């Protein structure tokens, strides 16, 4: 990927479609996992990232049960690359991560109060920053996440946020870079989504 002087849309095009840029996405996801791992003080593995175009009509099938209680953290990607990120955890996994973060035994945190939500927001911020740090290094650009917005609600209601912003000027598809995370043998019900700015993806 050539350095400097690339527009946000051209950078996305490269990231989403070029086989040569695969290692950037992989390195980004590895950094996200490494940051999560360092925060919760245990090994976290990450699966290979993939790029997909999710049809709007299949969005709910894609996320599973749209009514299930979910923790979603929404962040904007700002700077020379523009987009958004949505990180989804099952409610149980969010509580589990907060326990690990605070050095408590799993099951100690029962509800996501303001302090726990802020901890979840910090986890997401560090994961996305890890991903963006890698992309910024490879491309020689400056890219930052916005402060996180933490939502605890039905999964469908949470993904409405990115559906509404991604579909707006575009096709009926959500373009998503996704990866899954694993804590030793426990597969975290986590979706780490990175989405291009709709104005750039068209």
């Amino acid at each position: 990927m050539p350095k400097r002087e690339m527009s946000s849309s051209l950078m996305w095009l490269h990231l989403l479609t070029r086989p040569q840029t695969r290692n950037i996405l992989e390195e980004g996801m590895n950094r996200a996992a490494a940051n999560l791992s360092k925060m919760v003080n245990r090994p976290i593995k990450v699966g290979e990232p993939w790029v997909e175009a999710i049809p709007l009509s299949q969005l709910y099938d894609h996320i599973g049960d749209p009514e299930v209680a979910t923790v979603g953290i929404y962040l904007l990607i700002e700077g020379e690359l523009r987009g958004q990120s949505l990180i989804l955890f099952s409610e149980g996994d969010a509580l589990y991560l907060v326990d690990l973060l605070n050095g408590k035994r799993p099951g100690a945190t029962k509800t996501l109060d303001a302090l726990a939500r802020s901890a979840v927001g910090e986890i997401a911020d560090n994961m996305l920053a890890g991903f963006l740090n890698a992309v910024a290094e490879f491309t020689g650009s400056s890219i930052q996440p916005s402060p996180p917005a933490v939502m605890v609600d039905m999964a469908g209601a949470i993904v409405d946020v990115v559906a509404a912003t991604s579909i707006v000027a575009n096709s009926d598809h959500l373009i998503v870079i996704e990866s899954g995370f694993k804590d030793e043998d426990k597969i975290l019900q986590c979706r780490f989504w990175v989405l291009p700015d709709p104005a750039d993806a068209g």
Partner: protein
Amino acid sequence: MPKIMVVDDAQFMRVRLKKLLTGQGYEVAEAEDGEEAVKVYQQFKPDAVLMDITMPQKDGLEALADIRGLDPGAKVIMLTALGQESMVVQAIQSGARDYVVKPFDPNRVMMALEKVLG
């Protein structure tokens, strides 16, 4: 007892840093964004500042510039998840004394503080 101001929009991070620092005998004041940081700095007159970058209202780099404008001797350490070279360079050029990348190692934060406090 040295006075430290912790600036971070995440309540979790302020609580964690305050615990770490008070445990080491520091006196701590908190601010949750850059705007508040500038106000608290003038009242509390801290010996050093731990400053996040990504924050609503006013970010850490803007707050750094404002604080250095008020007090050219201000000792500000950036503490952020942004590990990008351009960001580090920008912060150091704006007068930050050190730059610690999150997720942080508590020892690294303590060392940075001890260094700037002499």
